[in-house]
């Protein structure tokens, strides 16, 4: 069997080709949607993503970068649109027919994802792990999706092309926002390479008044939230802010407890996540999924919760961190 690429354990080696074929099918389906005046733009957009999924590892990374820029340009020049769905009068009647059974396929995905994630390390074939433990969550999620889709296809006696068309229609309504999380993650890597975090950390230390235990706590929690809002991710903010303010001031100078500081500091960052379009998969993608005309509507709904919680976190940290 020499020459065969090992397909076990399941991991990115199966997920990426699968994703590539899916986005290729989406591109083709989009091209056939004559009700969409921008169908060529849509097809090019998802087709380019399919190329990165299928051939990304073979291409020079500069080409992958160029593809990312091209996709952003398609979106920036307004070349991505959506078609008009034909009215479907039978829907209410069909939903009466299925009754509560309709919820079953919807619940298969989370259940399989959950069970798969928890049991992945016990699944072996000839002593070899069946699922790459590093990607257990993702593999289980995709397995759940495939199983649920197959169940739905059989239950509804639907053609696979119907599923593809319906899925593509939903992806059309998400549009360019569907790529935003992946591109933002890539931007994060550019920020790291350019040492943006260190520069902001230095600025914070230079300009913030940090002359007392309270000031240090406020600078740390608010700094975590603000820096997270800029980077879109509390994980990027935590090492920078903790190295710049948390450890030298709260822990070393004022003898605060690192455990309490770390736990509440991270949660202060999460308050920032609730306020920023940079955290696209939590804030911008849902606005698109729910067909909200204001793409910042979810952020606006979260702002009061985020602000109050940041205040609570700051008070909690000040009261607790110097006491234990």
């Amino acid at each position, binding site marked *: 069997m020499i020459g065969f690429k090992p397909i076990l354990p399941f991991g990115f080696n199966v997920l990426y080709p699968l994703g590539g074929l899916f986005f290729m099918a989406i591109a083709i389906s989009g091209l056939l949607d004559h009700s969409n005046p921008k169908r060529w733009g849509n097809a090019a957009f998802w087709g380019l993503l399919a190329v990165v999924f299928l051939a990304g590892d073979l291409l020079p990374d500069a080409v992958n970068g*160029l593809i990312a820029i091209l*996709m952003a340009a398609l979106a920036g020049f307004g070349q991505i649109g959506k078609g008009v769905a034909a009215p479907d009068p039978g829907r209410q009647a069909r939903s009466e027919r299925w009754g509560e059974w309709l919820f079953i396929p919807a619940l298969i995905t*989370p259940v399989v994802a959950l069970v798969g994630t928890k049991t992945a390390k016990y699944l072996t074939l000839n002593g070899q792990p069946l699922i790459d433990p590093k990607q257990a969550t993702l593999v289980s999620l995709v397995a759940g999706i495939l199983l649920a889709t197959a169940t739905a296809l059989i239950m509804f006696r639907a053609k696979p092309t119907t599923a593809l068309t319906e899925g593509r229609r939903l992806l059309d309504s998400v549009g360019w*926002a569907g790529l935003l999380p992946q591109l933002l993650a890539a931007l994060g890597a*550019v920020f790291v390479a350019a040492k943006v975090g260190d*520069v902001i950390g230095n600025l914070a230390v230079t300009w913030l008044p940090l002359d007392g235990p309270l000031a240090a706590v406020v600078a740390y929690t608010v700094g975590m939230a603000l820096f997270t809002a*800029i980077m879109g991710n509390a994980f990027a903010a935590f090492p920078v802010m903790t190295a710049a303010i948390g450890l030298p001031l709260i822990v070393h100078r004022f003898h605060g407890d690192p455990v309490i500081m770390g736990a509440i500091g991270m949660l202060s960052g999460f308050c920032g996540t609730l306020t920023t379009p940079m955290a696209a998969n939590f804030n911008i993608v849902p606005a698109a*999924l729910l067909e909200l005309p204001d793409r910042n509507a979810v952020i606006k709904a979260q702002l009061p919760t985020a602000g109050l919680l940041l205040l609570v976190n700051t008070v909690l940290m000040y009261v607790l961190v110097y006491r234990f």
Partner: protein
Amino acid sequence: MLVLLGVAVMVLGFALRLNPLAVVAAAAIVTGLAAGFDIVATLTVLGKAFRENRYISIVWLILPLIGLLEREGLQERARTLIGRMKSVTAGRLLLLYLLIRQITAALGLTSLGGQAQMVRPLIAPMAEGAAESRHGPLPDALRYRLRAFAAATDNVGLFFGEDIFIAIASILLIKGFFETNGIIVQPFDLSVWAIPTAIAALLIHGTRLILLDRRLAKDATPEMSK
């Protein structure tokens, strides 16, 4: 200092409401060039990370399933199911979802919710169904506000529940960071100190959900003639 130009591009681009995808791409190029990379090196850094983060976009595989279910009337079904339960209001339903989302996330079951899997097909239509069975057809502004709250509730529940679970990425990141700085901390201790904030999140967001019910009652008074 120059590398902050990329951040400036982001802030300006979002403020001017330009297309976010184009803004992010421009910010990446500006940041790379400002850091002294040439254009090929910048594209390489961007392209490598773009390729390595492909897995993020794989969640869209779920859309054919959601599309099929919606074609058979899943959203309508979710609406009628909730509409039949007369004591359920939109705010109380979302409060219950917040609590369940927090508890399951605290047990490490973060994949039980999610915007594409739960909010769009089930939670948002249920909230709308609950509001409509009480107040009649909703004006668009109120309907959108309700949907935004459904999405927000999923996020708040996830963020302020997951850190109570000891094996979640953020807890491991904190532990790892402290370890490289010579401080040994236990994941369990970290997760315990996430509990006060989790309770505060439930109280704060929960109160806002109850207030949302009041606002629905005030703004969506049914026109009796219809």
